[in-house]
């Protein structure tokens, strides 16, 4: 009898625990980790053609076109290498911007710029990551990802569609915002909207994923699909300008060699970047 009671109790306890595990919402750390992975780290490597339209409040447009190659090199969701080959406008055509991104907060990224007219490989001092990327409303950090360890994360709301996470910088003096809120799709873990609040807690900047597509790829000989943002827009509510970014010709796991992210290919870009 005692044995039976014991068994019953055990079953109940185990059952409850299983039940609890199934229904428990992921922790906020799990959410931001997965979102970071989805936004910046899918596949081993990837390629995309990018058209960027920078539109000021008088609707004057400047355009940038480039091909971006990316390769994950470090531990899971850690270091990465980026190769950005500019195609237009004319004054930056054939310029290459290369970054070896370091996930460690203590280590600065390594950056290079190749100027074809002078055949010059220039080393660029790692700078403020919250500086405009090629004069657009996107910042370096928007393009290559903000380190998760630089913010505290708080799950403020769970809606039918989104996990809503509020992020507060640990070193507020290093950034221009006081916090930002990210709306993360519950199914795909894609960040769909980011809202940045200034030091007076006024919303001043938003980034939206306008279009997400399922991109087919192969991973370890298996067919996989990676949800991928193919259109996004950042709006600067203070200046009234916005930048639209459209991605096309997206490919994952194309086997980019490590060599591509070296001086040899800065001086003569790989065909992956030129096609």
């Amino acid at each position, binding site marked *: 009898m005692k044995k039976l009671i014991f068994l019953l109790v055990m079953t109940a306890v185990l059952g409850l625990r299983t039940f609890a595990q199934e229904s428990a919402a992921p922790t906020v750390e799990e959410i931001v980790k997965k979102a970071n992975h989805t936004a910046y780290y899918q596949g081993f490597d990837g390629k995309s053609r990018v058209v960027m339209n*920078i539109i000021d409040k008088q609707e004057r447009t*400047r*355009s940038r076109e480039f091909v971006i190659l990316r390769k994950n090199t470090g531990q899971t969701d850690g270091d990465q290498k980026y190769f950005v080959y500019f195609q*237009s*406008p*004319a*004054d930056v*055509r054939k310029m290459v911007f290369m970054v*070896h991104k370091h996930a460690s907060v203590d280590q*600065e990224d*390594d950056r290079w710029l190749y100027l074809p*007219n*002078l*055949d*010059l*490989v220039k*080393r*660029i*001092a*790692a*700078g*403020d990551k*919250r*500086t*405009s990327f*090629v*004069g*657009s409303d996107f910042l370096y950090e928007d393009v290559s990802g903000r380190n998760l360890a630089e913010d505290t994360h708080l799950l403020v709301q769970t809606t039918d569609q989104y996990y809503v996470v509020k992020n507060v910088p640990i070193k507020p003096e290093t950034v221009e915002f006081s916090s930002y809120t990210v709306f993360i799709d519950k199914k795909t873990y894609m960040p769909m909207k980011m809202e940045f609040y200034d030091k007076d807690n006024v919303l001043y900047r938003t980034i939206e994923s306008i279009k997400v597509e399922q991109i087919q790829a192969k991973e370890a000989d298996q067919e996989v699909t990676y949800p991928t943002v193919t259109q996004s827009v950042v709006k600067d509510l203070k200046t009234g*300008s916005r930048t639209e970014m459209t991605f096309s010709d997206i490919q994952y796991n194309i086997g980019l060699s490590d*060599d591509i992210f*070296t*001086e*040899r290919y800065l001086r*003569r870009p790989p*065909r992956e970047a*030129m096609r």
Partner: protein
Amino acid sequence: MKVKWIWMTVIFFSIGAGAVAEENDGASPWQQLFSSVDVHGFTELRGGYRIRKDPYQKDMSVMEARTQLDLSSYNDWGDFKYKGDIWGDLVAEQGDYETRELWFFTRPADWMDFKLGRQVLTWGTGDLLFLNDLFPKDWQSFFIGRDTEYLKAPSDAAKFSFFTDAANIDVVYTPKFDSDRYITGQYLSYWNNSLSRRAGRDAYVYTDKPDRCFRDDEIALRIYKNINNYEYALYGYWGFWKSPAGMTPTGSATFPDLNVYGASVRGQVAKGIGNAEIAYYESADDQNGKNPLISNSELRYLVGYTQEIAKDVTGGLQYYLEQMLDYNAYLRHLSGGPKRDRDRHVLTARLTKLLMNQNLSLSMFTYYSPSDSDVYLRPNIHYKATDTLSVETGANIFFGDHPHTFFSQFENNSNIYAAVRYSF
């Protein structure tokens, strides 16, 4: 000379390795061979005036209308590039044409690149200071305020690049010596030692330039390796002084033999990028400095540091030292004219600020030599009005205590310029 032949052999065999064309399923044979040709270029108007009266030059420092055409074709088996400039020049009072680039590039093997033809070449770590980069510079264009692109004159050369795990190697063979575009007196006045005064259009520099193909040749070598993103390099050069560094007894300027051996390192230091470079200039025709008509050997040193100071503001500092060897021999054999110091120290400072979504750039580059007591300032304002139209204005300001020192000799060439460029 022996070393040259070793490199000649390397080059010979490399050509033998050749390029292999890949199979391609296209329509016509032409299309199979060439992908589309990209056509680009720009049209530019540029004008500038001296801000001081120069008795030996026109008031105009630069006045030209220029069009550049740029054709390129990238194919699996190789790339082609053509870039040519045509311009009307009111200072020289003539129309002119120059092929800036005309080359073929191929990647015959995983471990090798090959580029043949007229090409612009750059290596080394200095910012507008060159120690181991012995490729031709166009100082004339630089000082009169043409686009910085023109500081680099093209070389007619073959560049072989080899990539191995141990290190990467670049070998550049120039069959016929490509000198710098030095100051001739046509566009810029300069210190003329035999006249003991500044001179210009009244006293062109006549040179006796080595010009025998495959005999008066140049070899430049770089061996480099990246270790944890610290870039190390060793350099070698066997050729000639790039600007006149000697004088024949009859008064023609010459380009004596020069060999250069050097090394550099570049990488992250604190929040910025640090670089250091050293070069030994062996004046091969005057090994111990006894010939007063030929420049002595030199040691050149450079250290530099660049950092982002604030958002969109970058600052850079460099210290450069040119040290004449066999200085006592130089003093003993000095025959009139102002004597130079053994050491020439130069400090440079660069400050660049980007504004208006990085469309407006303000920059200032300063050379200051405490030993020569002279200064060269290069302020520039560049604005991209649209994606195709840009305007810029700037100046080249020289001054100093003595009329013969490197920057000070150009004092009367101090100029301001402005340009508008339409790119397509």
